[in-house]
């Protein structure tokens, strides 16, 4: 064993390991980040604006990697604001939650629903604060559009989620009476992965007698659905073959479609 003065060779070896590893590490991390970008995952950057909205504790929570939990706590405040009738605060908090967790469908969906349904309907019926009915209707509509805005931003962040398209369709159908837009939303929803099968019939139903009374458009949409389905799909129970066929037949009769142009000529 030789005498040791100062372990220079070893220090050099340590330095070498660090110098070799640093560029590999950097390249690897850039690669990881690129993959995450491709997955449309974009974490959250703690900007000054975000820091101003969060308390100090919550900011540290976000910085320490507990973004989801911080968002959950902020979400609880949304309910508190609802109970205190603080609509604009609700709006701001929903914005905050969704910017903390832009990939949580649950927050976009419930956030939009809170504004476009809960707040909007409450405002519409709130005679105490606003006796003027026209103003009430105007305010109700304002909150519907705020909710719609939440859905739209949610879709921008989550283009493959059917849920927000479905909710937007319901909003157009039930709160705005815009059946054409509702049909379009349902149509988009039904094309996305995980969508329940019943959504594929909704666009045609929207055009039917209960809603838009547009027989030609309804006929077109039923036909489109029928031709889109593969023979195997048509036999699956969930696609309701009989229902599609009977609707097409009925509309062909009502609209007096010439026999040679019918899907099901008798």
């Amino acid at each position: 064993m030789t005498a040791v003065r100062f372990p220079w060779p070893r220090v050099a070896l340590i330095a070498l390991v660090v110098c070799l590893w640093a560029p590999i590490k950097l390249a690897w991390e850039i690669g990881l980040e690129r993959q995450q970008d491709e997955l449309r995952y974009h974490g959250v950057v703690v900007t000054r604006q975000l820091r101003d909205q969060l308390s100090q504790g919550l900011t540290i929570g976000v910085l320490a990697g507990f973004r989801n939990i911080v968002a959950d706590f902020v979400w609880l405040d949304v309910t508190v604001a609802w109970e205190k009738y603080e609509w604009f605060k609700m709006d701001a908090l929903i914005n905050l939650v969704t910017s903390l967790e832009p990939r949580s469908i649950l927050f976009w969906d419930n956030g939009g629903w809170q504004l476009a349904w809960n707040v909007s309907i409450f405002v519409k019926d709130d005679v105490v604060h606003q006796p003027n009915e026209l103003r009430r209707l105007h305010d109700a509509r304002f909150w519907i559009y705020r909710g719609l805005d939440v859905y739209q931003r949610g879709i921008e962040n989550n283009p493959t989620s059917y849920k927000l398209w479905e909710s937007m369709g319901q909003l157009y159908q039930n709160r705005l009476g815009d059946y054409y837009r509702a049909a379009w939303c349902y149509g988009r929803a039904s094309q996305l992965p995980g969508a329940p099968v019943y959504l594929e019939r909704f666009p045609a139903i929207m055009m039917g007698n209960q809603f838009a009374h547009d027989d030609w458009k309804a006929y077109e949409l039923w036909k489109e659905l029928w031709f889109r389905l593969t023979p195997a799909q048509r036999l699956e129970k969930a696609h309701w073959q009989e229902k599609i066929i009977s609707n097409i037949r009925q509309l062909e009769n009502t609209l007096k479609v010439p026999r040679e142009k019918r899907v099901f000529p008798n």
Partner: protein
Amino acid sequence: MIGRILVIARNTLLEAVRQKVLNVLLLFGLVMIAASSYFSQVAIDQQIKFVKDFGCGAIGLIGVCIAILSVAQLLPQELHNRTIYTILAKPVRRSEFLLGKFVGVVLLLTLSVALMSIAFAAVLWWQETQGLAAVQADYVHTPGWGKSPELTNMYQHDVAQIVNQVRDPQMVEAILLIFAKLVMAAAMAMLVSTFSTSFIFTVITTCGIYLIGHMESAARDVWLSHGAQATFGQGLFLEMLSLLVPDMNSFTIVDEILDGNVVPWWHTWNLLGYSAVYTGVLLALSELIFEFREI
């Protein structure tokens, strides 16, 4: 060699278990019970999300405490009790001693994470039962229940939603990624403790690096894209950060999994590989330093 490493590892695990380190896991139980009762005011799908967030958060937090604290006290305790002399006087290399200790901590982490995951699964299962009962209660009172096939369809869809939310196979990925993060934190603590002279210093420094690791990606982006605009000092700081501190923020992709988004296995493997290699480098550096440390 492997035999000696395992003997030391087993002894380290035994020490932790006999010192009742695993009692800390009761804390996890409390967090979970508190979380699931605290959130009972919100709708069931939100409850499940919150419970999942808190479960994984608690596994990560308790795990990182176990990882850093147990590594930080390893060497000081061995030196203080002089047990290290007796071990190193036996035919045991220093590297084997260090690696054995580390493997022991990893075994401890494995045990803790496994136990916490089981408790977590139990809480989720209970949430699912609650959720399904709530959905059924909703539908039973809807007019036309049992007659309309459309309604049955919707009911089945809602049930499937809850079941999918609870029994997400991707949770395995989430737990694995959290575990990888804990192992990295333990390796960081190991490196710091080889040159640190006190327990407190090791704990504070490692926690610091761990936290800064979550901001490393931001520093890297700034350095790579705006590096030229920074002053020399700022540039050097960002450069050191980007080159030396591990990227812990990439692991927050666990949040994506918890939100039900698909994170493909190839990405998970990439992250696991990254943490494994990083851990190896940290251990190699620890060994190089420990080898010439006076004890």
